[in-house]
């Protein structure tokens, strides 16, 4: 008897004995082909099918050989009659695929039992794929027929099981998944339905780079608009959240007025303050319900009241809530890829998978992410007005509130309203800052301080909460003291017959949970320690015997509420009260159980929540287990540019595990990006110390990480020399296998020598790099970037154009637009130094091209600044002015004081050369704040000159004094400061009609410039500007031009003529 199974992979037996039959070999592939052809096939068909690329006679020879091999293993089972080949089909032959076909019509369940997996799994010939698909479709049809039959007989569970099998059979079949989603939803498992959709959309994005079709999305949107029928119907009584709003009519009117303005296209924010339980959430909820009823978009989020919320968690929640209602944006929109950092499913939702966002340095990432969220809000508001509710901002993470301020400001002209609730206690400096920022910009349209309710509204609430006698209503009023939550809870307790009403919520909570046991109590307690609502996926992972029944019974207590697929406490105070009732050892165990459920949920496909898991593990006392979660939380925070939060996670982990050198290195890198050099160096030292006795390779990597920090955020070329040098020496000891690290060390050394060491040594290292490193974009960038600097150092500015351009193009191809910007900005500076101003403008345009559509506003501002400088130098003042206006506009959007001040400085310099003296004086004065990338001594000298022109001579003298007390760095062109100062001293003396002193000072300046003219000072000054200020061009020095100007000043002074304004 020959038995062959084709489903799941080829398996052949003769008389019950399995024989080796690898389908990957030609003879057995031919056998499989014959097994699927009951009528047999021709030799020609077999020869062309299996040996298509050889001559006919060779193919036929190969076929003969294969058939001979088959017949040797299967005696009398392969019939070859002339041209025709077939398996001998008699009682001694059984093939599952043929049996499947036979049973399908009259015994579909038996047929499906045979369908154990994909046909000929492991063999991917074209004919197999077609046959596999045919059988798969057939199997799915059978399953669906059976599912419908079971449904008709009331066996929903059986129908669902068959639908799940269909989905397993074809994980990318949308129609099958729509059936699954519908049956899950109909069966009350709305969360399961949403999960099935999420799995499908993620799989489609990953494997096909498309999103589910509009039909599937529409289905899921309908589903999301519904509540959970199963849970809701089991609620015993109306939840307080559903009671009519009482006693807050005036406040609601105010909020509705603000919304009216938003509806007319004017963005606004509102804040609702008040003590816990006073009715803030109820008021915001009422507004939200009314807005939603009007067909507008709404979304709500709440802070995790546990400490240590993940950065931007509020916005992740808001984005997810808005997502189902959003139409796909235009294909060219880049924001979905950026917002995906917050909500990973977003690009797939919009069918935009496959275009990952380019990576940029952390200091640029934040703005890009914020801008992307603003773009999403603008897109949402272009469809319908939007209401966003941010609950409990006093507990919110700082980046979430910073983004709220940013979004409110940037979206001020859009129909978007943000309503926020907060308590005054606990105090929150971040929430205070947000309110202040909104208020100072006139964006806070409504501030409500909810006061205790009067007696009558409290009585109304009590009557609505439970059927009470009037004396009981009076007890409620007396007990509640105007607090809505306490009123409702007291009323409910009295309504349930608790005559000894506890004066506190804790007493109420105790009365409710004491009689409970088993899973119900555990569920309530876990909801308390979770400190947020629990969704259905998570509930499933808690492994209750019957989670749905436990949830339904927990809802009966009235402590919990089911809403939007999640179960949570009706109020945070109730939750706190229950938590306080749990004795410590049990509470720790519950925290642990919840953490494990979160991890299990993640393994099942849910969004990872490492920060929350870490917090729960720490509360559980499982500190060691929290360490890897804290590290993951830090990595996630870094990806969101929330560097402070990432550092905090790592520092917390290091308190537990101070020997983790990898964490020290991570924290060092983040401290460097945060501009905290000393802390970064300290962390690097700890890591290097810990690695000191270990492998030279690991130690070398630590030194390389430090070199990277000095190369990037800290920008200390001499530090790079030391660290990359140490790494290189260690890598020599490490032996083979560290080519990438060697190359990095070499490239870093070359750059550092080029910028701050010996240009000759830089060239030598670059030659070495050229020999050692494999070609590629990163190599081209490293070499070109360093070589351009080395050439600039030597004053060979024009020679630097080519390597810098090569580097810029290569690193753009490698997906680093921020570094590409740097290349173009640097070479623009070189072109300016060479006097090739048209060329410089061209390079600046290349810089704009490199960052176009990347959301990199800060580099864009610097490019406008550079453009303004070059245009000013070319005397094209109107265009220079326009460039500074673009710069100022972008800086205002970002609202970074340093960039705003830089824009003022640049505008002022145009004003100074255009005779707009008062404007110049005002803006220069305003630009002198800390941290601005400008030369402070030079700015003060310019300010003094402007003040001389506006005849504010004492102030001008004050600025001269201040100029010499300013710290001086190489980027301030220190050698030029003396003749510059002398010139302004001369101008001041002339303005004071002290002609001899004026002539003396101007002559002193002339002498100074004459000395400098004899030397080449441009080269080092240019590289110093690039390294110190991180700006492309801030004031190149041209001694000849300066000399001519001072000579003209002197000549005018001698002749008694006015000093010319424009140089």
């Amino acid at each position, binding site marked *: 008897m020959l038995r062959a199974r084709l489903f799941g992979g080829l398996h052949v037996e003769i008389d019950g004995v399995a024989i080796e039959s690898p389908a990957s070999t030609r003879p057995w592939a031919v056998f499989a082909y014959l097994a699927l052809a009951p009528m047999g096939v021709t030799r020609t068909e077999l020869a062309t099918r299996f040996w298509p690329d050889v001559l006919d006679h060779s193919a036929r020879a190969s076929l003969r050989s294969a058939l001979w091999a088959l017949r040797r293993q299967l005696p009398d089972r392969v019939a070859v009659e002339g041209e025709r080949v077939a398996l001998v089909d008699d009682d001694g032959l059984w093939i599952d695929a043929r049996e499947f076909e036979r049973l399908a019509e009259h015994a579909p369940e038996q047929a499906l039992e045979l369908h154990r997996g994909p046909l000929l799994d492991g063999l991917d010939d074209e004919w197999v794929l077609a046959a596999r698909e045919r059988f798969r479709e057939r199997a799915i049809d059978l399953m669906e027929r059976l599912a419908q039959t079971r449904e008709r007989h009331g066996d929903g569970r059986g129908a669902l099981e068959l639908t799940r099998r269909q989905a397993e059979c074809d994980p990318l079949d949308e129609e099958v998944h729509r059936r699954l989603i519908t049956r899950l939803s109909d069966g009350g498992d709305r969360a399961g339905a949403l999960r099935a959709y999420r799995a499908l959309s993620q799989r489609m994005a990953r494997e096909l780079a498309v999103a589910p079709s509009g039909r599937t999305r529409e289905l899921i949107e309908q589903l999301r608009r519904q509540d959970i029928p199963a849970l809701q119907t089991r609620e015993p009584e109306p939840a307080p959240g559903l009671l009519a709003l009482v006693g807050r009519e005036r406040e609601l009117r105010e909020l509705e007025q603000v919304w009216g303005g938003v509806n007319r296209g004017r963005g606004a924010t509102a804040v609702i303050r008040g003590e816990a339980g006073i009715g803030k959430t109820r008021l915001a909820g009422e507004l939200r319900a009314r807005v939603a009823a009007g067909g507008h978009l709404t979304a709500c989020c709440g802070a995790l009241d546990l400490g240590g919320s993940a950065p931007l968690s509020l916005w992740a929640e808001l984005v997810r809530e808005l997502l189902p209602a959003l139409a796909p944006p235009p294909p060219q929109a880049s924001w979905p890829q950026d917002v995906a950092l917050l909500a990973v499913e977003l690009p797939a939702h919009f069918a935009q998978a496959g275009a990952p966002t380019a990576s940029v340095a952390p200091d640029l990432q934040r703005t890009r992410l914020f801008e992307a969220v603003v773009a999403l809000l603008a897109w949402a508001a272009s469809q319908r007005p939007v209401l966003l509710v941010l609950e409990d901002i006093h507990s919110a993470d700082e980046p979430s509130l910073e983004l709220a301020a940013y979004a409110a400001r940037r979206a001020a002209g859009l129909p978007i309203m943000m309503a926020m609730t907060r308590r005054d206690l606990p105090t929150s400096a971040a929430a205070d800052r947000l309110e202040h920022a909104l208020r100072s910009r006139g964006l806070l349209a409504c501030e409500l301080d909810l006061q205790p309710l009067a007696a009558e509204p409290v009585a109304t609430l009590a009557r609505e909460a439970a059927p009470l006698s009037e004396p009981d209503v009076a007890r409620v009023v007396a007990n509640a003291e105007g607090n809505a939550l306490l009123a409702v809870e007291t009323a409910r307790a009295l309504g349930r017959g608790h005559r000894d009403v506890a004066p506190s919520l804790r007493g109420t909570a105790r009365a409710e949970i004491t009689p409970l046991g088993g899973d119900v109590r555990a569920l309530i307690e876990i909801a308390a320690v979770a400190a947020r609502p629990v969704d259905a996926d998570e509930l499933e992972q808690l492994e209750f015997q019957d989670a749905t029944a436990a949830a339904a019974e927990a809802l009966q207590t009235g402590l919990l509420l089911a809403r939007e697929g999640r179960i949570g406490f009706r109020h945070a105070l109730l939750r706190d009260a229950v938590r306080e009732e749990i004795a410590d050892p049990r509470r720790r165990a519950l925290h642990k159980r919840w953490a494990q459920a979160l991890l299990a949920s993640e393994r099942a496909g849910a969004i990872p929540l490492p920060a929350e898991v870490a917090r729960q593990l720490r509360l559980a006392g499982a500190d060691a287990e929290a360490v890897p979660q804290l590290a993951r939380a830090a990595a996630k925070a870094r990806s969101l540019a929330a560097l402070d939060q990432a550092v905090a996670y790592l520092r917390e982990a290091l308190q537990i595990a101070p020997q983790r050198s990898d964490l020290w290195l991570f924290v060092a890198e983040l401290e460097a990006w945060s501009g905290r050099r000393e802390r970064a160096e300290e962390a690097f030292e700890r890591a290097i110390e810990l690695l000191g006795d270990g492998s030279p390779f690991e130690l070398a990597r630590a030194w390389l990480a430090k070199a990277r920090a000095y190369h990037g955020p800290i920008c200390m070329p001499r530090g790079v020399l030391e660290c990359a040098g140490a790494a290189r020496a260690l890598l020599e000891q490490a032996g083979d296998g560290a080519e990438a690290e060697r190359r990095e060390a070499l490239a870093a050394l070359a750059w550092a020598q080029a910028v701050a060491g010996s240009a000759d040594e830089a060239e030598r290292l670059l030659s070495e790099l050229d020999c050692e490193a494999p070609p590629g974009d990163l190599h081209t960038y490293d070499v070109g970037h360093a070589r351009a600097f080395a050439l600039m150092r030597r004053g060979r500015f024009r020679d630097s154009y080519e390597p810098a351009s090569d580097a810029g193009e290569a690193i753009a191809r490698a997906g680093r637009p921020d570094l590409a910007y740097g290349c173009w900005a640097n070479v623009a500076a070189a072109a300016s130094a060479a006097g090739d101003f048209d060329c410089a403008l061209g390079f600046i345009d290349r810089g704009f091209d490199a960052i176009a559509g990347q959301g990199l506003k800060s580099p864009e501002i610097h490019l406008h600044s550079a453009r303004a400088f070059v245009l000013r130098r070319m005397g094209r003042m109107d265009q220079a002015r326009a460039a500074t206006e673009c710069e100022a506009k972008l800086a205002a959007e970002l609202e970074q004081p340093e960039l705003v001040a830089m824009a003022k400085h640049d505008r002022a310099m145009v004003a100074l050369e255009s005779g707009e003296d008062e404007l110049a004086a005002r803006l220069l004065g305003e630009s002198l704040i800390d941290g601005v990338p400008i030369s402070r001594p030079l700015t003060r000298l310019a300010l003094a000159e402007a003040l001389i022109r506006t005849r504010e001579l004492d102030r001008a003298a004050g600025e001269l004094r201040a100029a*010499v007390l300013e710290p001086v760095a190489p980027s301030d062109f220190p050698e030029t400061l003396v003749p510059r100062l002398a010139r302004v001293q001369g101008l001041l003396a002339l303005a004071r009609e002290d002609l001899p002193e004026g002539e003396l000072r101007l002559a002193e300046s002339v002498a100074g410039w004459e000395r400098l003219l004899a030397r080449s000072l441009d080269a080092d000054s240019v590289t110093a500007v690039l390294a110190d200020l991180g700006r492309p061009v801030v004031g190149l020095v041209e001694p000849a031009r300066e000399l001519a100007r001072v000579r003209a000043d002197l000549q005018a002074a001698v002749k008694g003529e006015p000093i010319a304004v424009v140089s």
Partner: protein
Amino acid sequence: MPSFHDTAISQAPPEEVWKLLYDPARFPDWWAGVGTVDVGDEGSYTMFPDGYPDFPMAQLLDTRRDSQQVVVSCLVSDLRFEWRLAPAGDGTRISVDVDIPDGEAHRLQSQREVIAASLRRIAELACERG
């Protein structure tokens, strides 16, 4: 490493002292023992001691953004001079810290005298300019 600190008050405003301090070409006018100065590239210059025109002493003039200092380092002897200015009434307080490498510790006393004389001279010279 031997080191010392010295200070002087000039009646001249800080601007005038500052111009002398920031211009190596003017060092011979006030720095005792400096005969001539050749100013080179990259922040470097060469001082020739009085009476020794064939004995170049390469120097590096550096400035520090964070501490308002002018630092002069001798590339031959590793001597290091850190100069600081601060307003003092209508005049200027001039301070200097000098580090002398161990190998040249014997020069401590002579450097004290040289710097004291230089301080007096720069303070006076700045007044002449003012």
